[in-house]
């Protein structure tokens, strides 16, 4: 008799669904995946829901409402392994821009009836609320890394996910450095690899989608950006995107935000 397949659940919190779509976008591997796991809960893909507990939960999105904060505890309880996927789940996402301002002011500006809105003052990563077994970076996550993480958990081994800079991927690909050869400001030297150096591959600077690399010297890179002509405001904005609330990027943007 065939062994029971592990149950996979995919959960959504405050997010754009792009990371869940990255999983659905694994077209060539979806059948192999369905063969190895029982897709037990994945509303983006199917209304059919199998009750927990779940062997592996992938969590997309940040915690941004009181309901989220309760629900993630339920997810954790129902999951053997919990892996967060994407910048929202690992750093708070672009919605963490609210963390730098007065959330109530946003509410009254955006909504006609703000009293109907229940939200938290800050958007926070999943790991701020429950223990997380692995955090996969990216906005969105990289398909190959996602499959690697799933494969690793199925095999009971550590995922092979590098924490070094984008520069290492860039140089392995043989790309020409956009900062040195074009004077284009690039976040690659302080950003974690994983995307395969997507933007430098099309002669753009890195936008930092995968968040801070393992030892990010953001202050030195910011000085280099200034020498290339970037204003303090531009530096602050560069560090304040999808991973705005990740510690190293947050601290660097705060050093520059008032020019």
């Amino acid at each position, binding site marked *: 008799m065939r062994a029971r397949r592990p149950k996979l659940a995919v959960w959504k919190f405050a997010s754009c669904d792009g990371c869940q779509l990255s999983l659905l976008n694994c077209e060539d*591997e979806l059948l*192999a*995946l369905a*063969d*190895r796991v029982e897709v037990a809960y994945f509303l983006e893909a199917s209304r059919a829901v199998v009750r927990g507990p779940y062997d592996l939960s992938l969590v997309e999105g940040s915690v941004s409402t009181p309901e989220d904060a309760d629900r993630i505890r339920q997810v954790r309880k129902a999951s053997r392994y919990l892996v967060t996927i994407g910048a929202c789940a690992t750093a708070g996402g672009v919605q963490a821009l609210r963390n730098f301002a007065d959330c109530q002011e946003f509410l009254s500006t955006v909504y006609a009836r703000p009293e109907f809105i229940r939200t938290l003052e800050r958007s926070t990563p999943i790991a701020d609320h429950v223990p997380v077994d692995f955090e996969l970076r990216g906005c969105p996550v990289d398909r190959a890394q996602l*499959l*690697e993480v*799933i*494969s*690793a958990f*199925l*095999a009971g*081994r550590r995922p*092979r996910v*590098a*924490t*070094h*800079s984008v*520069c*290492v991927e860039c*140089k*392995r*690909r*043989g*790309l*020409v*450095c956009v*900062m*040195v*050869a*074009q*004077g284009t400001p*690039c976040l*690659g*030297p*302080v950003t974690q690899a994983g995307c395969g150096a997507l933007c430098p591959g099309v*002669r753009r600077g890195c936008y930092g989608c995968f968040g801070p*690399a*393992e*030892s990010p*010297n953001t*202050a*030195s*890179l910011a*000085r*280099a950006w200034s020498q290339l002509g970037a204003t303090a405001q531009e530096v602050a904005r560069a560090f304040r995107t999808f991973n705005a609330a990740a510690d190293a990027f947050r601290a660097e943007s705060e050093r520059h935000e008032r020019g």
Partner: protein
Amino acid sequence: MSRPPTSDGSTGSPSGYVLPAEGLGELFDALVRRGYTLVGPTVRDGAVVYDRLSSPQDLPVGLTDEQEAGRYRLRARPDRAYFGYTVGPHSWKRFLQPPERVLWRAVRDGDGFRVEAAPEEAVRYAFVGVRACELAALAVQDRVFMGGSHTDPLYRARRADAFVVAVQCGQAGATCFCSSMGTGPRCTGGYDLVLTELLGGEHRFYLEAGSPRGDEVLAELPCRPASPEDRQAADQAVSRAEAQMGRRLETQGVRELLLRNLEHPRWDQVAGRCLSCGNCTLVCPTCFCFAVEDTTDLSGQVAERRARWDSCFTGQFSYLHGGSVRATTRARYRQWLTHKLATWWDQFGSSGCVGCGRCITWCPVGIDLTEEVAAIRGSDGLRSGREASGENP
């Protein structure tokens, strides 16, 4: 830096020939006829990179480069020179030690598994446009990959087959310091053919063979014997490069200097600038470190072992049980520089630096190892007082 073999320090060998510039295509053809895949300098994304070549028109014709710490730009030359630039971000190690490769694969087979050797791409390269510093770098990597009791079969096979067309530098860049390292700018051995591009008067190449293979190829080219004037012009071209050397590194006692200054405050200062991004090691033509990684696929049926370029600037590089041995950027930069210039001697009997200047140019924040060494030399013996605070490394 130990010199490659067959060095006699001379250039005006009596077997010199002259190839008109139009004849360069015939050299390419002769190499292709022998089954070589030609790789060499070509322009991509605003820099001279090394890639497949099909004709001399793929070379960076009429271009030169301007280099400074953390800065590289291509510029037009007033002439149609084929080799009128120095070295770019690539080096030949890309072809001999590929950035990523599968070492072997294991496939489940009943209750066990079988191991399959990775299919290696059988390719014979002709390297066109190898500079003196790069010949020295090849010699360094030869010692690393073939010098000890364990050799790398892929490297050995590709290296043994590779046909090396060296080119004498007619100019040096602002970040070049090969003359300090004793590796250039004059190519003195380790090649099959060596060209010197002569631009004054008739556009032509002064040519010498450095091996029997080189002699055979040379015999097929529309060459004429070189005149004393040709030889003199070739010699002067390299002397000009020597005089233009943009950087200098005092190598006298550098090993001892660095090893007795492991607690120098300069390491803290450079750590304040260093991004720990790994660029210097990846552009370095001698840095050879790679990571060996095992993976399994989704089905759980196939496991793979891969080798990928790694860098001593990553945390995972020195990860042992429980953590990274070199947790700080200070420790990583110090490890890299002291290995390159000091302990490389103990390990391989030569310096690990050939003076090409790539690590200076391609550092996004322009850290210059010649400046770092000079700073330590200038305040030899200074200590940061870290030892007392127990913060080492």
